[in-house]
C-alpha cells in the first residue's frame, strides 16, 4: 500500500512544495515490542555450522528429500533469497531497503544463507514485477520476498514460482495467492488501541474525529474496523465525522481543516498513517483546543509530540507498520527454507508502537524527515512464528 499512496502523490502533489515530506512513511508507527529480554530464548544452531557449510552444501543435494520430510531444520547456508520490490521512491521504502541491507549482509557473512539480493522494478507496474518474479525463479533463487505492486495481479507469477518449488513471502504490499506467505501487522489492533487509550484518558467519553487512509485499500478498512470495534466496546465515544487523509499529512491537514467549522467539541482524533502532525496543525490554525491526536511514527509527529509534552504534558500514542518489516520477511523466508513448512500463511507480527516513555529513544534513533524503525532479528522472527503457530 505504501506504493499506492505514492502513486496518489504523484498525481496530487505535483508542483507542491516539499514542506511536510509527504512522501515519507505514511503508514508507520507502533509500539516497540519489548522483546529484548527474550532475545536469547530460542536459539537455532545454524550459525555453528559455518565451518561445515561447504561439506553440507555438497551433501545437501543428496539428502534433500530426507530433509524435506523431517521436521528438523535443514541447513539453509546454500539457499538464495531474493527481494522483489516494486517501488523505492519514498522515505518509508528507503528505510525498508536500508533495513534489508542492515540485516541480510550479516546473515550472508555468517553463512546463514548464500545470498540475499534486492531487485527493485523501475516503473512500479504489476506486469513488470510479475516478469521480474519469473526471472528470479529462473535465476535459481530458493525464496523470493515480495513487496507487491498489486495484491492480485502478481498471483499468476507467484503461483508459477510456488509450482517451481520457490518459497514466496509477501509483506506490506501482500499478495492474495494462497501458496504465498503474508507477513503483516494487526492494523485493526492499532485502531482499537487508540480508542482504548482515549477511554483511559477521558473516562467521561466524548466526540471523535476519524482520519481515514486511502479508500479502497484493505489496510484502510482494517484500521476502520478496529476503531469501530473500539467504539462498540467503549460506547461513551462517538465518531462524529470521518475525513479522507490518504496517509498523507498535507491531505489530512486540508481535509480536517475543511470539516472543523462544522464539528462539535472533539476529545480525540483517531488516525491512520503519519497524519497526526497535519491534523494537530489544522486544529491550531482554526484556533481550537488541540484534542488527543494519534501519531504514525514519523519524525515530524514525534518531534511535535515531544515539544508539546514539554509544554503541557500532551498525552498520546504513536504506532504503525515499521519499514523493518522487510527484515522480518527475510527471516520468515529463511525459517521456511529451514524446513518449517507448517508456518501459518498469514503471519501477524507486532506493530511498532511508541508511548511517552519510549519517545526520547525513538526520536533519537529516527532521522529527520524519516520514520521510526526497528530491525528484526532471527530470534524475534522465530518467536513471532511460534506465537502465530499457537493460535
Amino acid at each position, binding site marked *: 500500500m505504501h506504493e499506492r499512496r505514492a502513486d496518489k502523490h504523484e498525481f496530487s502533489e505535483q508542483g507542491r512544495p516539499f514542506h511536510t515530506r509527504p512522501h515519507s512513511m505514511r503508514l508507520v508507527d507502533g509500539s516497540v515490542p519489548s522483546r529484548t529480554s527474550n532475545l536469547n530464548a530460542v536459539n537455532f544452531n545454524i550459525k555453528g555450522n559455518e565451518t561445515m557449510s561447504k561439506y553440507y552444501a555438497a551433501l545437501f543435494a543428496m539428502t534433500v528429500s530426507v530433509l524435506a520430510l523431517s521436521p528438523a531444520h535443514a541447513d539453509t547456508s546454500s539457499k538464495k533469497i531474493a527481494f522483489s520490490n516494486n517501488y523505492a521512491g519514498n522515505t518509508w521504502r528507503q528505510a525498508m531497503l536500508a533495513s534489508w541491507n542492515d540485516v541480510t549482509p550479516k546473515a550472508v557473512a555468517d553463512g546463514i544463507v548464500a545470498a540475499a539480493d534486492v531487485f527493485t522494478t523501475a516503473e512500479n*507496474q504489476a506486469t513488470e514485477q510479475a*516478469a521480474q518474479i*519469473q*526471472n528470479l525463479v529462473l535465476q535459481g533463487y530458493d525464496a523470493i520476498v515480495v513487496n507487491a505492486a498489486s*495484491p492480485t495481479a502478481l498471483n499468476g507469477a507467484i503461483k508459477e514460482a510456488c509450482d517451481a518449488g520457490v518459497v514466496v513471502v509477501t509483506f506490506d504490499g501482500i499478495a492474495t495467492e494462497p501458496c504465498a506467505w503474508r507477513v503483516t501487522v494487526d492494523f485493526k489492533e492499532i485502531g482499537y488501541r487508540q480508542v482504548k487509550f482515549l477511554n483511559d484518558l477521558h473516562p467521561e467519553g466524548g466526540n471523535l474525529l476519524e482520519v481515514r487512509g486511502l479508500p479502497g485499500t*484493505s489496510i484502510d478498512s482494517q484500521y476502520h474496523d478496529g476503531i469501530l470495534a473500539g467504539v462498540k466496546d467503549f460506547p461513551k465515544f462517538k465518531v462524529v465525522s470521518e475525513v479522507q487523509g490518504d496517509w498523507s499529512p498535507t491531505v489530512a491537514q486540508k481535509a480536517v481543516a475543511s470539516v472543523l467549522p462544522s464539528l462539535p467539541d472533539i476529545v480525540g482524533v483517531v488516525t491512520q498513517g503519519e497524519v497526526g502532525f497535519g491534523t494537530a496543525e489544522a486544529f491550531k490554525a482554526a484556533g481550537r483546543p488541540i484534542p488527543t491526536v494519534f501519531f504514525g511514527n514519523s519524525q515530524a509527529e514525534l518531534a511535535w509530540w515531544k515539544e508539546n509534552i514539554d509544554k503541557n504534558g500532551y498525552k498520546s500514542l504513536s504506532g504503525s507498520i515499521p519499514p523493518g518489516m522487510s527484515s522480518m520477511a527475510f527471516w520468515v523466508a529463511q525459517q521456511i527454507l529451514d524446513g518449517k513448512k507448517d508456518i501459518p500463511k498469514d503471519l501477524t507480527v507486532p506493530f511498532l508502537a511508541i508511548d511517552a516513555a519510549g519517545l526520547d529513544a525513538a526520536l533519537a534513533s529516527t532521522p529527520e524527515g524519516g520514520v521510526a524503525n526497528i530491525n528484526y532479528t532471527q530470534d524475534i522472527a522465530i518467536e513471532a512464528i511460534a506465537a502465530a503457530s499457537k493460535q
Partner: protein
Amino acid sequence: MMPNLMTPRALRSLLPAISFTVLLIGIFYVQPRAMSFMGLNLMLNLALPIALATIAQMFIITMNDIDLSLGGFVSFTACIGATLLGESPVLGVLALLACIGVYALLGALIHVRNLPSIVVTLGMSFVWLGAAILVLPTPGGQAPDWLRAIVSVKTPFVPFVIVASAIIAVGVHLFLMRSSTGVILRGAGGNPQAVARAGWSLFRAKVTLYALAGFFGVLSGLTLVGLTTSADANIALRYTLLSIAGVILGGGEFVGGRVSPIGAVLGALTLTLASSLLSFLRISGDWQIGAQGAILILVLALRTLVNRMERRK
C-alpha cells in the same frame, strides 16, 4: 531462387529476427537454466499479451496514427475479463464487443472530424482507466477457468507462448501483407490519396483498422488476465509505450503503411527478453529502463545504417 540476404531490404526485414536471436543467445550464455522448456516459458509467457497489444498498436500505426490509450484499454478489458466475463458470460462478451465497437467509432470520429489521433487517444486513456476503476474499484476479481486453461496450455516440445506468437505473427502477416484487403489497408495509411482516387473508401479502411486494433487489444487483456488470474485497474498501463516500441523495433515506421506483423511480434518478444537479460546481468531496476532504451536506439541505428546502404546503391 534463393533471395540475396545481403540486400538492404532483406537485411532490414531480418533485423528484428537478428536482434531477437542475439538477445536469446546472450541470455542462454548468462543463464543456461533459461535454455529449457520451463525457462523459455517463464521468460516469455508474459510477452504474449504484449505481443497482442503490439499487433493492436501496429494496426493503428499502419494508418499513420498512434494510440496512447492502448494500455488503459487493455487494463479495462482485463478488468472485464476478471469480473463480468466470469459472472455472466453473455454480458461479458457483449461488453467486450462493445469495446471493439468503441474503437471502430473512434476511428470513424478521427476520420470524419479529421482529428489528431494522439489527442483523441490521450483523452480516451483517461476514460478507459476511469472505466476500469468503476468495473473493479479495488484490485481483485477472478479470471474464468476456461481463460486460465487456454493460456496455460502445455504444448509439447515448444512452450505455448512461442506457438501462439508464431500463429499470431503468421496469421496477421498473411492478412495484412498478402491479402488484397491488407494491401488496401496499408495503402490507406501509406498513400491515402492514391487509394481514395482508386475508389476505395478511406473511411472504411480506418474503421476496419481501428476495429482490428480493438479486437487485438481485447485479446491482449484477456490473455493478460488469464496469466495473472486476477486484475487491477492499473495492470497494463505500461503497454502503451511497450507496444509502440515493439512496433518500431519490429521494423514499423511512423510514415503509414510501413509495418511488419512478424517483426512486431518479434519486437515485443525482444523487449521482454531485454528486461530478462538485464535482470540476469544484475543491472538495477533504475538502469533497466535506460538500458532498454539503449537497446531500442541500437536497433534503430542499425536500421538507419541499412537504409543508408540502400540509398547509396
